[in-house]
């Protein structure tokens, strides 16, 4: 597996690049797709989209509330509106528009949060989105998806165009290797098992699935432990059936996310598990409730143990409590 992952790195692309490419493919056959941007087409890799489909891109300028409100108006008139903006701004500054104009009015806007999590690294707290899962989870009528690799991204973008519902897609900037070429099923609300094992389950999403998979390799090679690794790309609706299976078939569960430990994937899983009688060791890994350390994305994630070694260490410690 390790060798497989290494070979995938050469062809790995950032998920938000894949988003742009797939959207261009879809738009060639679907004139109802409209991209709405807030001076964000460069970071959203949408400059080629703008060149190819100048009639299907609406530039708003740096005004995220208006971005989402206008996108909702477009959606209400039948457009497949993709509102693309850095996740940090999209889901905080325009939160009321997301709540009311998209979700409550049921205007099927595709919200696309780019450069999510701590992708902006040393640019700091203003540019980090560590709140978006928590904020959007509390809003009714919202599908929340953080694809892990290029395959999941392609599938998620295609699915978002096919369904006519409010959805939030969250992408980062880091090239993401394919996780498991054999596991080719993808649907919103169904976690993707990318590796199977009976000792511990590591449930991650977005760009943290990859270090989780590397951690599973380390656990096998150095400790002889078998880990299941799940890409829980959809946080809402959560795949509780899979959670139930994991809780029954493994000895402990770790969740990993590029998000605050408050209100994200981990607490969503914990809420289900606790209310359904789960009594085994459980650990939420994410960004703690503090101002993040300065560094690149990788440095920040490493600092908080969201790394191959960090996740493996936590797994060993957790299993040692049994």
């Amino acid at each position: 597996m390790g060798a497989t992952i290494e070979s995938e790195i050469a062809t790995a692309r950032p998920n938000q690049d894949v988003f742009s490419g797939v959207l261009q493919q879809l738009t060639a056959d679907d004139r109802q797709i409209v991209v709405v941007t807030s001076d964000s087409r460069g970071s959203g890799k949408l400059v080629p989209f703008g060149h190819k489909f100048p009639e299907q891109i609406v530039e708003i300028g740096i005004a995220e509330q208006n971005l989402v409100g206008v996108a909702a108006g477009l959606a209400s008139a039948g457009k497949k509106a993709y509102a693309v903006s850095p996740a940090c701004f999209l889901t905080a500054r325009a939160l009321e528009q997301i709540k009311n104009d998209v979700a409550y009015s049921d205007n099927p806007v595709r919200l696309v949060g780019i450069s999510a999590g701590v992708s902006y690294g040393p640019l700091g707290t203003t540019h980090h989105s560590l709140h978006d899962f928590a904020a959007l989870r509390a809003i009714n009528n919202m599908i929340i998806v953080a694809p892990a690799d290029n395959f999941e991204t392609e599938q998620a973008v295609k699915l978002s165009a096919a369904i006519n519902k409010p959805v939030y897609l969250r992408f980062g900037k880091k090239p993401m290797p394919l996780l498991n070429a054999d596991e080719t099923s993808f649907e919103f609300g169904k976690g993707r098992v990318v590796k199977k094992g009976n000792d511990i389950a590591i449930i991650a999403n977005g760009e943290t699935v990859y270090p989780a998979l590397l951690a599973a390799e380390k656990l096998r090679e150095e400790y002889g432990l078998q880990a299941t690794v799940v890409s829980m790309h959809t946080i809402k609706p959560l795949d509780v059936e899979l959670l139930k299976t994991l809780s029954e078939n493994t000895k402990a569960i770790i969740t990993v996310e590029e998000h605050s430990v408050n209100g994200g994937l981990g607490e969503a899983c914990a809420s289900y598990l606790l209310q359904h009688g789960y009594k085994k060791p459980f650990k939420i890994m994410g960004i703690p409730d503090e101002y993040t350390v300065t560094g690149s994305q990788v440095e920040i994630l490493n600092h908080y143990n969201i790394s191959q070694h960090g996740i493996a260490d936590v797994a060993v410690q957790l299993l040692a409590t049994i």
Partner: protein
Amino acid sequence: MARKSIAYRKNILKYIVGANAGHTGGCLSCVDILNVLYNNVLNVSPATFASPDRDRYIQSKGHCVEALFVVLADHGFFPESDLETLCKYKSHYIGHPTRKVNGIEQNTGALGHGLPLAVGTAIAAKMDKKEYRVFTLLGDGELPEGSNWEAALTASHYKLDNLCAIIDKNSLQITGSTADVCNTDPLDKKFESFGWAVMQVDGHDLKQLAETFAKMPFETGKPNLVIAHTIKGKGISYMENQVKWHHGVPNKEQYEEAIVELDHALALV
């Protein structure tokens, strides 16, 4: 149409009293505008509400929903008797517009949302080369919301002459005079500098309102703004220009006094 305005006012009071809740003053300031829009301007009816070619009306000042409900009921979007459930347990008829009610385009209530929604819809009409127009009604008290000004920029940037924003300028909001709370005057100059074509009207003069809307687009390539000068609580002497009627509900005696005044006005039409 003048008789309709009075009948609408009577129903607004009736259902606000029935619900023991509502934004009485603002409903009475905007109901003449709604009268003209639905009876003279908008190409929309229960039969055409699902049509992609219908004119759109989005009420940004969602708290004055009782006026809109009364006008929609008059147009057969739902039975008027439904309004007896206004704000009651499990009713779809809540204190702000919701799409669960036939005829409502967008769920509003939080302020500063109508104009961006209308701008997006008007852009879609331009993209699709459709003839429908998009109207949105704002209160003057909601203008400090920055999203309005963001959308005002976008509207002129995209030359949305199929968009009409109407400001119900009754000059009062919950705290007091809008000039004292946050002065937004001169609205005409502000919007003109943002690239809009602006007309000012007496918001209770039905003929003037109809003639104004008939002039759309006021200037080719510019979004339309109608500043409607209105009186909060219009039609009920003791309510007019009194801030306490922003969301005041008349008691039994006050209600009866208001109905007597409206019936008297009806007899004079």
